[in-house]
């Protein structure tokens, strides 16, 4: 019979994580971390945004990049889903479209780590749905 994960395992994870967190990390404010918002409206979810979000969370942790990854609603770029908005500390947010795991990997390596811009960036749209 396989062991069932239980709350006792959570306690162990908590102490593991806290032991590894450096003092600097503990005082890390959201502003000093990379913010990533994944569009998770119906169109995003249907196009595979969940896979992108899972990938981002796991990979950023693996590569030790302090980041906050959250879900957001429709950003209006339904034709280019999955879309993610990446904000590096001190920079304007940039929206990437047509993101899959491969593209997400490039975004992490090129944009997040080095500030290099990539193809597939969606420019800011100042029109709303009424066309004004």
């Amino acid at each position, binding site marked *: 019979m396989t062991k069932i994960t239980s709350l006792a395992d959570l306690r162990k994870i*908590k102490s593991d994580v806290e032991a590894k967190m450096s003092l600097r990390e503990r005082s890390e404010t959201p502003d000093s971390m990379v913010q990533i918002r994944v569009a998770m409206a119906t169109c995003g*979810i249907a196009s595979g945004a969940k896979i992108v979000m899972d990938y981002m969370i796991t990979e950023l942790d693996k590569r030790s990049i302090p980041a906050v990854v959250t879900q957001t609603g429709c950003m209006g770029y339904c034709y280019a889903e999955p879309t993610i908005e990446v904000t590096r500390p001190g920079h304007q947010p940039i929206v990437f479209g047509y993101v899959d795991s491969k593209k997400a990997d490039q975004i992490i390596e090129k944009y997040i780590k080095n500030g290099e811009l990539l193809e597939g960036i969606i420019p800011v749209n100042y029109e709303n*749905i009424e066309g004004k």
Partner: protein
Amino acid sequence: MKDLALHILDILQNSVTAGATLIELKIDEMPAQDKYLVKFIDNGKGMDEEMVQKVTDPFFTTRTTRKVGLGLPLLKQNAERTGGYLIIHSTQGKGTEIETQFTFSHFDRLPTGDIAGTLALTVSSYPAIEFKYTHITPQGIFKFDTLEIKEELGDLTISNPRVIAFIKDLINDNLKDIKAS
């Protein structure tokens, strides 16, 4: 949507947008009665009679970035395709309950998908909201409450990637244990 878990991810967002502080998901598998029941219960701002009627219309939405809202209409269609239904009960200022039923044995019933991952993602994205998840099968009941998890975590945030991975494992192991489909 490819599977039920993606619909769940989508509909839970509705509850978040409605300002809910407590969101419950109940899944009840009743193969003996040929029913697969899914219930969403939230304490968000609710809707009036008129809006409840409009909300399953794909051309109605509360968002301002687009003119269509497909979440509920698509789920309703998928439920009805299996001979099931989708009913909405809502009271303005109190909350909303969405009950949807699928015929268990129907060929068109969507595969369940990654419910554990969906829940892990959702609870970690909204650390201030309490989520409760109950899954019932003929083999057993599994209950999950973020209040317990947060109590255990203390200062550590529920959005920590390792905690997210833990929650996924916790749910998956327990679902396997009660032989969820």
